[in-house]
């Protein structure tokens, strides 16, 4: 098992494409986590907001973050 792990690491070391893909996945995951946080904050803001105009704007922001997250998750799956 240990040898297999070591071998995998060695292969990854020499395979720059694989290394790059892994890094890309990690970066997308970082951004997705941050977007999820943003979405949560926006939802809290929306629940407290009374002005209709501001509510509409906040809902739009939430929709956009949704779309971005959806795109990000799709990218993450494609990078597998």
């Amino acid at each position, binding site marked *: 098992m240990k040898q297999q792990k070591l071998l995998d690491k060695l292969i990854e070391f020499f395979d720059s494409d694989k290394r790059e893909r892994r*890094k*890309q996945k990690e*970066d*997308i995951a*970082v*951004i*997705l986590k*941050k*977007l999820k946080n*943003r979405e949560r904050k926006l939802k809290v803001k929306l629940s407290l907001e009374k002005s209709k105009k501001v509510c509409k*704007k906040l809902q*739009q*922001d939430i*929709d*956009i*973050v*949704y*779309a*971005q*997250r*959806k*795109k*990000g*998750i799709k*990218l993450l799956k494609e990078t597998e």
Partner: protein
Amino acid sequence: MFKKVLLPSIFFVLAYGFWISPDFKQISAGVAIFLFGMLSLEQGFRAFTGGTLESILRYSTDAKWKSLSFGILSTTVLQSSSLVSVITISFLSAGLIDLAAGIGIIFGANLGTTTGAWLIAGLGLKVKISAYAMPMLVFGVLLVFQKSKVLNGIGYILTGLGFLFLGIHYMKEGFEAFKETIDLSGYAIPGYRGLFIFMLIGVFATVVMQSSHATLVLIITALSVQQISYENALALAIGANVGTTITAIIGSLSANIQGKRLAVAHLIFNLVTGLIAIVLIQQMMLAVDWISASVGIQDDDYTLKLAVFHTIFNLVGIVVTVPFINIMEKMLINLLVEKDSPIEQPKYLTESALDFAETAVKSVRMETLHLYENAIEIIAEVIGFSRDEIASAQDLEALIESRKKLPEIDIEARYLKNIKGIYSAVIAFISKAKFNWEIEQSGDMHWLRKANINVVEMIKATKHLQKNLLKYSRSENEFSRMEYQKMRLGLGLLLRELEEVKFEADPDIKLLSIDSIKLSVKKAEETINLDIDELIRSGKIMPETGTSMINDSSYLFEIERRLLSFFETIFAAPNRELTKAERKIALDDEEIEQIREHGFEDKLN
């Protein structure tokens, strides 16, 4: 005049010296080889300044002790206080560190440079270093020919060290042979007279060689063969310390006001330190004897004692001056004031930053933001707001209502005063940037250039828009007046929204905030177009007014699009890899259009 005569005179004196004494020739060749080694060493370390050194510098200067330690450590490792000074000046000019941090680094670098004396006295003279020089040169030169940036850098460092060792060897040999023909120690001058004369010689030698390290090695090798007396060697070391500031002053001539302030701080430090050393020379010598005895340095090992002295007097300088860093900072800011120019000049661009890719990119980024700030001030005024009102939470609609007449801003004059000088400097700076840089930094420069062009195009579009904004803000026709007021409000709100994103807490996802703004802009564009059509159709405005409105709305959309494009460059995350991921996740025009048309019903699983 003096400058013109100086170099030929030095050539003549040296040539005459070489003619009458082959030993003098050998010593001078040693100095020349040593200096060449330093240049090579600097070149080698520059290969590693593509970001690593800069990021260390950024995170290690937020406290006084940290900047001091950074100065000490970096100079100890790099063995070149000039390289550390140049990096510090370029960082300071780029606005990435403040003056107090810069002063701290320079003070630390002064102490760091004393390690050179230890290395030369402790290692250089005790071990036969020329034996190490040869393999270093061979391996070094082989590596210099390698394409890899890292190997090439290591090659220059090895070659540099090889030449340094070889230089020391020649100087030592030269002095030993020289001793047999002429005994320089006969020229030793005791007392304060000797102190001053030798100090001046030290200053002169350092100014000519542009390196206190070279002067020190010369002093130490001469001292090791007793060609100069210990007291006179101390005076020479003090002189070398003062002389080295001349290099910093010359370096700061091309720097901006911050760089000049730092050079003056350096001069003050070295003058104060030199003065203390002269006044307290006897006490310092006693301290050197005591410390040397405590750490086991032989009483007659004058070269190591000189290294102790060099360290002590720089340390005393730091202890005395560090408490005054903040006062010195204030004094220098008041003393060296930026000249008030009729045409606003760049704040962050300096020639020295061009040598360090990462710093150069940061300088251009800062300057681009400076240009944007000036442009926003003009645009805000044209649509009837002040810069502060845009940044505040005031109701912009109410402000428009309260100020029906717009002020007439001379955009052409403002462009010449606040935009053109900076814009031209940024474009010139980017063109001077080297293209053998890392691909990322060249890419950044390309986008920043585009961002600057966007700012200027925004101003041009504002100028076109202004004509009718002024005309219709005074119009009798309520509908046309209202439509132009809507345009002003839309632009004002967009500027405010971008301002809010600018200060958003998480810099890693700033870029993604623009997607929602893009959607709002698209919706506003659609509303304006529909409004204009409706006004013309219902006969509420003349068709001629309608076509003017269509033209003006396209100027408005142009400003908005340029603003968004500008921010897409400027809001890039500090981490390049994360920016790449952000750009992949950001929605494209088609995706935003889809949301505008159909809303967003699909939820994530």
